[in-house]
């Protein structure tokens, strides 16, 4: 069982990417994209975990108790916030695309090869 979290991270990555590739609605595509991004959070945190390690917040525990890796948590923390704002930007594009094209099906957006 010691590779389960990484296997799940790969599984989520592929499922999310499948959602992006076969999406028929821009908002569905954007949400699937955020699922793809969430796979990296799981992978990063899975790497940093140490069995029965404390949460590297030494308020009530002595500083040298066994603790989980803090760096991956810092990286993941900011990634979640940044991922959310990029998703919001994509949703804004979807809203305007719907106004402009009258549809949100990525297949029907006009090809641009003039």
């Amino acid at each position, binding site marked *: 069982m010691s*590779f389960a979290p990484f296997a799940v991270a790969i599984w989520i990555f592929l499922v999310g990417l499948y959602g992006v590739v076969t999406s028929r*609605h821009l908002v569905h595509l954007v949400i699937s994209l955020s699922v793809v991004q969430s796979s990296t959070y799981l992978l990063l945190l899975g790497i940093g975990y140490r069995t029965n390690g404390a949460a590297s917040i030494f308020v009530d525990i002595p500083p040298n108790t066994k*603790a989980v*890796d*803090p760096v991956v948590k*810092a990286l993941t923390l900011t990634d979640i916030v940044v991922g959310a704002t990029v998703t919001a*930007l994509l949703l*804004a594009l979807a809203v305007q695309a719907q106004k402009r094209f*009258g549809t949100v099906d990525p297949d029907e957006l006009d090809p641009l090869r003039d």
Partner: protein
Amino acid sequence: MSAGGGASQRRDSEISFATRRRLFLVSGVVLAALMVWALGGMPGFGDYHGIYGLLLNRVAVPEEHATNVITAVNFDYRGFDTLGEEFILFASVLGLALILRERRDEEEGPPDDDATGRQVSGASAAVRLITVALVGPTVVLAVYIIAHGAITPGGGFQGGVIAATALLLVYLGGEYLALRRLRPLPLVEITKATGAAAFVLIGVGGLIFGAAFLENFLPKGTAGDVFSAGTMQPLSVAVGLEITGGFVLILSEFLDQTLVLRRRRGARSR
């Protein structure tokens, strides 16, 4: 409710939907195989002993007097990353405002073009009372989480978003249009930009008073109380300000889209 022509959509892209799916499934399997092959070399889940994390866990509390090592990493050791992340938020909120700005063929008006004609009946008195009453505690919780970033789990990022959800409570209570009349948007914009500028200025302060950009030059106080860990707390507050402003802007842009903007009478969207 998938929009538009459904199955009969114009397909002049080279590959059809089915081919695209097949292409992805094949390459997806190969990618999965590559990733599993890569994971073979990983330390098992749970027995990780990377030097970087071990060193930081040992060093952060005695040196920086910050008990939350994650915030120490975010706002002190790797503060330059957080500067970049903060401006990612700054740029994407600017981009959002740019994309959702009022178009030529739109005007502000009563929300008559609601989805499937649902009537916004306005919140009942009980809902309005509860939501507006909850705004206060939410903001206090947010301020607590931002202020205690270096001590307990939390920090500028999470606190900022919690503060922004206070606006949702206002919307749920049906008071958004009233709030909008107060024209808070320029104020929110300034809060966001002040947070971003404050982060850089604290960094420059490190250069002036300390020896390097973003150096922790303020007194470190005693670990565990609010005014400890030098520049970490002000940086956390700066990020909190920016994220509050950023998310409030994002939410109000989208709220404007649904509640306020509608297509101008007779304007043909080109």
